[in-house]
């Protein structure tokens, strides 16, 4: 392992909670509905984080707790029952309903598992109910997806068929590319989790080889292991290097020769390197500060340093699973400063002191930093853009080069006063 410097920090944070992940999960599974059991804050959070107004009826909503629900727990359960009945009557096309716990529902100990169990009996054969928590007292941003996937695992049937299981939400086009490449490598049985339809859950067992596409799935990985799945240890498929290692690790698990992998992906790599060149020109030697938010920070830092030659000042991450991130950390340059957790004020002090060329941060911080003359890239875009794989390396680099390029274009003119 490279000599990486690990730090922990606690204090006030500037991050989203796990409910935010509903924004991309509901698009991945169009036959599912996400019902948050929470407060007006939760509803407002999701609609604000989505950044756009909702067109027509969305496939997510909030059962907003009111004063009378807090008075007695029995009431709240009945009320939730009523809301679910109304919802299903209104949206008969829903196949899976996620009951999503929130900060207030966790604090009042609303037992969503029991509610889901009861509803499952009542709506047997029509709608499946699963529950997980996306609360901010337990989860950060992308961890919400971890919770949702973990909740689906008990519904997955067992099978000893050998297969490659890609775990973590991917953009559909990226997923298609990956599957094509794996087929070319000679792996024919490939499935994705989460699937595109919530009812088409992959079967899993001891011959399932799990390849993670996203770094924030600690709990899901643990439960998949319990079900006998083999977890392929690899860096994440961001950038050429990460994707290459990722393909190689998968090939190794299926006893496919390295030579074969190189044969298939070499043209892709050459093409991607060419495409990366113009971005690298802008990013090279620029100093980067990553604030914690998506848990993609370590992989991004590795890509932006190793392939785009940026200098890393600090790599923040809301949560660090050293085991899962082992391969990534190995690829980081020596003396990389990783900070787990956050004290947003102290961290912003360090941002200002270190005079970075680019800061990766959340939407609450981006414009204030820009106003101070510091270029930023908001991290939520990373979870909405197709950034995975060799073909997407230039696209990923482009997310970071664009703000810098824009600043070059927008050179300020001042009035001459004399």
């Amino acid at each position: 392992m490279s000599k990486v410097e690990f730090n922990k920090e606690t204090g006030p944070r500037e991050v989203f909670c796990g409910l935010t992940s509903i924004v991309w999960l509901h698009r991945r599974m169009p036959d599912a509905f996400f019902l948050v059991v929470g407060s007006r804050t939760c509803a407002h959070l999701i609609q604000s984080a989505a950044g756009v107004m909702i067109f027509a009826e969305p496939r997510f909503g909030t059962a907003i707790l009111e004063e009378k629900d807090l008075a007695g727990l029995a009431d709240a359960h009945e009320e939730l029952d009523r809301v679910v009945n109304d919802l299903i009557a209104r949206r008969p096309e829903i196949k899976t309903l996620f009951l999503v716990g929130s900060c207030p529902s966790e604090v009042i100990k609303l037992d969503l598992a029991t509610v889901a169990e009861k509803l499952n009996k009542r709506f047997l054969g029509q709608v499946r109910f699963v529950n997980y928590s996306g609360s901010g007292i337990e989860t950060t941003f992308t961890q919400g997806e971890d919770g949702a996937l973990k909740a689906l695992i008990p519904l997955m049937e067992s099978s000893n068929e050998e297969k490659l299981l890609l775990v973590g939400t991917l953009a559909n086009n990226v997923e298609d590319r990956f599957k094509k490449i794996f087929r070319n490598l000679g792996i024919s049985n490939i499935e994705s989790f989460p699937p595109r339809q919530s009812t088409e859950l992959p079967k899993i067992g001891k011959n399932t080889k799990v390849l993670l596409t996203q770094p924030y799935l600690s709990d899901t990985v643990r439960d998949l292991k319990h079900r006998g799945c083999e977890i392929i240890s690899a860096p994440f498929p961001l950038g050429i290097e990460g994707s290459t290692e990722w393909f190689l690790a998968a090939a190794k698990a299926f006893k496919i020769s390295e030579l074969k992998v190189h044969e298939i992906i070499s043209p892709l790599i050459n093409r991607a390197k060419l495409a990366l060149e113009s971005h690298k020109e802008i990013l090279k030697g620029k100093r980067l500060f990553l604030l914690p938010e998506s848990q993609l920070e370590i992989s991004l830092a590795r890509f932006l340093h190793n392939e785009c030659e940026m200098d890393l000042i600090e790599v923040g991450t809301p949560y660090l699973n050293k085991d899962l991130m082992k391969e990534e950390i190995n690829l980081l340059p020596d003396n990389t400063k990783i900070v787990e957790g956050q004290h947003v004020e102290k961290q912003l002090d360090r941002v200002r002191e270190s005079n970075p060329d680019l800061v990766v941060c959340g939407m609450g911080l981006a414009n204030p930093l820009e106003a101070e003359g510091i270029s930023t890239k908001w991290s939520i875009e990373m979870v909405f853009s197709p950034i995975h794989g060799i073909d997407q390396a230039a696209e990923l680099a482009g997310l970071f080069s664009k703000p810098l390029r824009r600043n070059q274009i927008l050179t300020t003119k001042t009035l001459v006063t004399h």
Partner: protein
Amino acid sequence: MELTLWTYEGPPHVGAMRIASSMKDIHYVLHAPQGDTYADLLFTMIERRGQRPPVTYTTFQARDLGGDTAELVKKNIKEAVERFKPKTLLVGESCTAELIQDQPGALAKGMGFDMPIVNLELPAYSKKENWGASETFYQLTRTLLKDKVSSSDKISPLRWKELGRRPKVNILGPSLLGFRCRDDVIEIQRILSEQGIDTNVVAPLGASPDDIERLIDAEINICLYQEIAEASCEWLKRNFGMEYTNTIPIGIKNTIEFINEVHKKLDLPLTNKKELENKSKLPWYSKSVDSNYLTGKRVFIFGDGTHAIAAAKIAKEELGFEVVGLGTYSREMARQVRATAKDLNVEALITNNYLEVEDAMKKVSPELVLGTQMERHSAKRLGIPCSVISTPMHVQDVPARYSPQMGWEGANVIFDDWVHPLMMGLEEHLIDMFKHDFEFVDGHQSHLGHTATNTKDFLNSDEKKEKNSKEGIIWTESGRAELTKVPFFVRGKVKTNTEKYAILRGIPEISDETLYDAKAYFS
């Protein structure tokens, strides 16, 4: 428990953030878990603010709940005070913290600080954003001025005469994330200063705690947005005798009424009446023959209380529209909206459910919708032109240019913003009329997309004739041909009315004559 897919208002602590962020030298310590920080982006992204909201989130986690969350609150308060050195500290909690009852306000008061501390108790499970903003502004005003209550004489609106200076007023209510507040303040200040009236303090927007303490240097208060400022105005009236204005100066009539009200309260003679009445282009533009086609346009209105009521008055009295629907999501102003609706002979819609609003809109098939950004989306789906008149705020509602809603210039802005979408509608009609001319280029894109009632689809419909209306009524060739000659924006209405008439009369087939019969029947 209430199923909510989308909400017009955020929780009450977001209202408190609006007050804190609008002001200077204030800091708000919010006992809240991570995730609640999302609210920062409302200010930094939607309002494009270059500063973070002055808010510290205590960021408690599940593992803290078993231990001492109160200590965590105190630690955060201490750090925030040391770092930001606010002149006044707001302390409160979001929905989750309300449940664990640490009473952060009381904790803060026990920490021995010199600065005033405002303890905000904003019930998250029964109240919403505007109420939270109003309550915060009220509590802040009260905290900073309560010591001066007994020592002060009642403030006479005529005091300026005794003091031998120009009259002074406060402008209360404008805040961040309020609809066009930034520009309304400039417009109102301009109007007042032209009349020889000085602005003492604008608050909360741009004010500091020192300014709040100076509120009583003015003779009267201008309550610019009732949702935010009425509670404070009422308290200042009760305790200092300060009168406040009730007229919201949106539209020509209300602006004139507002100026009259201010002058009357201050006993200030109005000298330039004639000149004032010609300040805005709206009355002449509305009178110009070009605007004849606006007469009786059916308009549906939904928004916050202040803007919805004002829009109804302008629509009816200044543009000659017919108001066919009026509603608000501001429960606090439901009574006033109902009264306005009653005068207009429509039933008020008081709801926080945007789907109900869309249904109501659909039912009355208006020609123009005045609403929030959500109604803009609904109207788009229904192929109806729309103009946005109210929060919730969208990045488009913070235009770079000066575009108030209030005062003379506000009336100009409103004329353009409401009439242009209708002009686009007229253009649509012309496109429809000329599309058979050989010069017409096929594929001319409608600004309404493909949602407007489409003639071609109706004519080329391959469905069996029996199916071309729900009630089993058949449209004959002549009926169909006549219907296509009707301008597209009323075609839907004509079709429904004709079918209604056919059912009423037991007519199985609709011919061109039936259309005219129905037209005569309903006129």
